[in-house]
């Protein structure tokens, strides 16, 4: 009787249930660790960071691209953290959000989307240029990657960028997403990220759904729906602006 094989087969064939156990254990340990800091770091921030560490371990052990879920036994974590349940849970957080707070946001909320997309795009272009990518298509694709890791490849495909450039654009977007997850709880007080309006501006400026979702959760779970509400328009807007207006503007400046 090969107990180890039986055990791992159980995990493989009941992936989602196994994920509940893994995440439950990680969360428990994370909250205990956060307790040691006497509440200075929120448990959810530690848990999310622990998730990223697991992602690094899983990715470097297997050479796969799905982080911890690259390990076959833990593939179920990929289902639990995948787009379907993530969006379902994000929508559920709207239950209890206050429509009056959202209405107060107004023009500044819309403006946050444009500023967020354009500044990211410009930063990406500047770095791409410094690293020797002087053709407009590559610069625009890397710029779009800094917007989010979805906008980068969408823009690259639309403009016909090389796969190397597309890979860089995805990596830049992932770095941004991970940075937002880690940095948000650290800078929340400094930026006054304490009310629904600020959360909506933040969502619109950062845009990365995974980054803002995790970052805001670590600051105050009550503010998550407000940040998610604006962030969800960001990727769509980015896919709209980057391969069209922003690319043409860059072409006009560089060409």
């Amino acid at each position, binding site marked *: 009787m090969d107990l180890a094989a039986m055990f791992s087969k159980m995990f493989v064939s009941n992936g989602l249930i196994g994920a509940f156990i893994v995440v439950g254990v990680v969360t428990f340990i994370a909250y205990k660790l956060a307790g040691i800091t006497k509440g200075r770091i929120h448990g959810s921030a530690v848990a999310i960071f622990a998730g990223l560490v697991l992602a690094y371990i899983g*990715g470097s052990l297997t050479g796969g691209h799905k982080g911890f879920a690259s390990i076959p036994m833990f593939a179920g974590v990929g289902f639990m*953290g995948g787009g379907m349940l993530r969006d379902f849970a994000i929508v559920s957080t709207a239950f209890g959000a206050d*429509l009056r707070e959202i209405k107060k946001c107004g023009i500044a909320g819309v403006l946050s989307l444009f500023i967020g997309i354009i500044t990211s795009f410009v930063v990406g272009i500047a770095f*791409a240029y410094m690293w020797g990518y002087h053709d407009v298509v590559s610069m625009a694709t890397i710029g779009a990657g800094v917007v989010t890791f979805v906008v980068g490849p969408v823009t690259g495909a639309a403009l016909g960028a090389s796969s190397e450039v597309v890979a860089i654009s995805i990596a830049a977007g992932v770095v941004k997403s991970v940075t937002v997850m880690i940095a948000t709880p650290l800078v929340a007080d400094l930026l006054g990220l304490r009310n629904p309006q600020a959360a909506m501006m933040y969502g619109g400026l950062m845009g990365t759904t995974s980054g803002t979702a995790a970052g805001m959760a670590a600051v105050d779970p009550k503010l998550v729906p407000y940040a998610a509400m604006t962030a*969800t328009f960001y990727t*769509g807007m980015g896919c709209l602006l980057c391969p069209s207006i922003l690319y043409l503007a860059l072409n006009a400046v560089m060409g």
Partner: protein
Amino acid sequence: MAIYGVALLAGCMFAGVFLGDVLGVLLNVKANVGGVGFAMFFLIILANRGIDKGWLNEKSQSGISFWSAMYIPIVVAMSSIQDVVAALSSGPLAILSGLLGTAIAFAFVPVLVKMGSKG
């Protein structure tokens, strides 16, 4: 029953995501435009109506609040499947541009909050 709340939540998600997809096609964009945002908007409206009119009782609401309590665990699972290795090993171009892009966006948060409170 809890399933009524879960079904309402699921229905809102589909309505929103479908609207986002349609909007994406209309705008000629290869992405969903604001789908989750629309879904959240529908849920806020319908859940408030349901509570006011009495058809969304406490048991049904518990179906929604369960998923909202599962939100952080799902985010933990999500962070554990990011391609962190690629992000760290892709070289300074991706890392620096990602970092600076985030820093600048952070810097605009207080600026916009000030604007928003004036308007």
